[in-house]
C-alpha cells in the first residue's frame, strides 16, 4: 500500500470522525490544529484506523499518535512499505 493510498484513507477517516467533508487533511494535521481532537477522539481515531487497515495498535502506542503522519507511519510499520 503506497503512502498516498494510506493518506487518502486517513483523510477520509479524519473527515468522517471530525464530521467535515471539506476538512483539509495533510500529513502535518495534528492535535494542535483541531480543537475537537480530545482523548475520546483519540480513542475513536485509533479504533477507526485499526478497522480500516486491519491492524492492532498497542496501548502504549496510542499516546504517540498526535498527527496524521504519526498514524501513517504506524500503518506503514505494521503493513510494510509499498
Amino acid at each position, binding site marked *: *500500500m*503506497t503512502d*498516498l*493510498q494510506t493518506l*487518502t*484513507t486517513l483523510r*477520509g*477517516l479524519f473527515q*468522517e*470522525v*471530525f*464530521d467535515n*467533508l*471539506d476538512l483539509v487533511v495533510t500529513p502535518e494535521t495534528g492535535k494542535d490544529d483541531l480543537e475537537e481532537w480530545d482523548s*475520546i477522539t483519540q*480513542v*475513536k481515531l485509533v*479504533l*477507526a484506523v*485499526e*478497522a*480500516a487497515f*486491519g491492524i*492492532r495498535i498497542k*496501548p502504549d502506542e*496510542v499516546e504517540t499518535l498526535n498527527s496524521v503522519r504519526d498514524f501513517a507511519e504506524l500503518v506503514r510499520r505494521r*503493513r*510494510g512499505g*509499498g
Partner: protein
Amino acid sequence: MNASVVSLTLRHAADKATALAALLEDAGAEPAFRLAEAIASAIAAETDAGVARSLRDRLEAFATPVAWTALARLAMQASDKPAALRAVRGALNAAPAPDAELLLLEARLLAANGSMVEALASAREALRQFPAHDVYLRHAGLVDRIMASGAWTPRRRLRVAIVGGGTTRLLAEAVRMNGFRDGIGIEFYEGPFGSWRQEIGNPGSGLYAFRPDVVVVVLSHRDLDLPADGAKAQAEQMVEEIVALWRVLRERSSAHIIHLAFDMPPDGSWGGLEDARPAGRRQAIRYANNLLRENRLPGLSLIDPARLGGEVREVWDAQSWYQAKHYPAPDAVPAFSELIVAACRSITGLTSKVLVVDLDNTLWGGVVGEVGVRGLVLGAPSAEGEAYVDLQRHLKELTQRGILLAVCSKNESADAQRPFAEHDGMVLKRDDLAAFVANWNDKAANIETIAGDLDLGVDAMAFLDDNPLERSWVRTRLPQVKVIENDGTPSGMLRALRRGLYFDAVDLTEEDFQRGRSYQARAAIRAVSDTSRTAEDFLAGLGMVCRHGPVEAATIKRVAQLVNRTNQFNLTCRRYSETQIAEMAVDPAWWCRWFRLQDRYGDHGLIGAVLMRKGAEAWSIDIFLMSCRVLGRDMERFMARCALGAARDAGISRVYGEYLPDTRNGLVSGLLPRLGFKPAEDPRFCFDVAADALPEAGFIRDADGAVRNRALELPVSG
C-alpha cells in the same frame, strides 16, 4: 482482497484496464467499501492521464457497487459532491441489499447539500443494517448533526445516565445513535470514570442533577474482581452493595434502572474447577447474578450480556481493557447497545407489536401454489424442513406473549390457507394469526390494510420475507416498517430476528397473554357485526361489562404499558414511567383509575385509564386513553361518566380536559365536545358536573354497580 494487493496489481500490470476489470469481476455484486477505496486511490495516483481515463471508463462500464463506489470516492477527492452523490446512489441501486457504509456516505453528501430530511432517512436505514463498531464511531458526528438539525422529530425523548466501572462513552454514543434510529431522542449523561458508587450514593452528584429518565449501570466481572476459589463471600458483599445503591437510587429518582448482569470472564487459571467447586469463581459470578435477579426492584431491568453469545465472541476483551478500560469491548459495543436500546423501546412503548410474514419460502420451503401442500419442505427428515419448523416455533412463542402475527402472501387465498389445515409439519395454526392477507396486490398496500384492520400504526410493524425484491419494495414505500434483512434461509431469518430484538420486552402483563385471543374475538365480532340487524342490537348482544378500580400495585405495570404505548385514542399523549405512575397512584392529589372490559367473547383485559389532577376548585384530566381494540363500544363514555361522577361526588363543580395534538391522535380531536365538554381557554375544555348531565355509556354494565347506567340490564352470558 486487501488494499496492498490492489495497489500492486494496478501499479505493475501491463494492461491496467484489464487488471481492473479482473478485480471488479472478482468482487462481484458485493459493496466492498475498502476495495473501492483502494481502487479509487490507485486511479487517483495514476500519472498517465490516458490510462486514468481508461480506468474510469472501465468503472463506468462495470456499474457494480464496487465500481460505483470507486467513482464516488474519486468524485469526492475532486470535491465534486453532486457527482459523488450520483455515484453513491448508483452503488445503492446496484447492491443486493442495503449497505450501511454506502447509506451513510449518501447521508453525509445529502447533509452537505442541506437535504437533512433525506439524510435522516439514509442514516436511519444504515443503522438498521447492524454495522460494525467503527461505522458508529466514524459517523457519530454526522448523526449528532442530523439530530440537532430540526429535520428530526423524535417520537420519544429520554434522558439516559450511564455509570460504570470502565469507559462508557463509546457505549453511550452507540445507544444514542440506535435510539435515533428507533425514534428516541436520547440525551445522555456520563458519570466520571469508574465512579458509579459516588454518582448513585451522593445526592448532590451530577447524575441526580441531570434528572435522568433511565439510569444504566454497566459493571464487568473486573468490578467483581474475584479470586479463583472461595469467591462466594466477596460476590455476596458486592451484591449487597449494589442492591443498597439500587434502593438509594430508587428513593431519589423515578428513573427506570437498567442494570447489566456480570459477564463471564475468559477461562481462568482454575479452569473447570471454577465451575465445579461451590465457591469457584465462575460459580460465584452466577451466584451473584442470581442474587441480583432475586433482589430486583420494580422499575428495574436486569439484562444479561450472555444473551449476545451468538453475536459477539467476547463482551470483555483483554487488550481493549488494558488500553482504556473499555467495557464492553469495542467490537461488542453495537450489539451491547442493542440490548439497552431494546429495553428503552420497551419502556417508552415503542416495541414492535406486529410481525407480518410471507408464506412461500418464509414459513415453509417451496411455493404452495406450484408444488401443492405435499411438495412443501417442512419438518423432518429434511434439514431445511426442520429449520422452518424451528422458525415457526419461534413465531408461535412470540404470539404466546402477545406479539401479533399477520400473513401477507402473494397467493390464491385458498392455496395459502391449505397448509395450515392440511400439513402435519405446521406449528402455526390459522388461529395464531391476527390477520391473513393472500392476494396478488402489492405488499406495501396490503401491510397498510393489515395495520388498519388491527387499528395499529405501520410504525408498530416488522416485516419478514425471504424475497429481496419484496423487502426493497416495502422498505421504499413504508419506511416506518422494520423490514428485517435476511439471507433467505430459515436459520438466517431466525438469526435476523434474534439480532434485531424487535419484540424484546422488559416485562409482561396479563394483557400480553390475552392479546391474541382478544384479536381473535375482534375477528369473530367483525363476522358477527355483518349479520346483526342494527348497531344497537349488535352492541346489546355483546353483553359488555366493565370492571374498574383505583390504580394500585397489581395494575401499575399494565397502566404504565398503556400510557407509553397508546398513540391513537389518547387525549394528551403524556408519557410517564412505571415509577412515576406508582407515585401518582398513592398521591392524594391524583385520581387514577383503570378500566377493564369483558364481553361474551372473553376478557379484553385492562384497556383504559384515566388520571386526573385534583385541584381545590376543579379537577383536570391529565391522561385519558383507551386501547383501539375496544373502539366503537362507547367505552370512552363509560370512562368519562365514571371520572366525572367521581368529581361530582367529591363536591367538585368543574372538570377540565385538554386535547394535545400528537402525531397519531387525530382520532380524539373532537372527543371532549362529544362527551359534553365546552371549550375553555385553548387547548382546555370544561365540563360543568354540577349542571350538565353525565355522558351515557349505552350497553356497558358496571360490574360494581358504582356507575349507574340507564342502559338495559343484560346478563353476562357465555
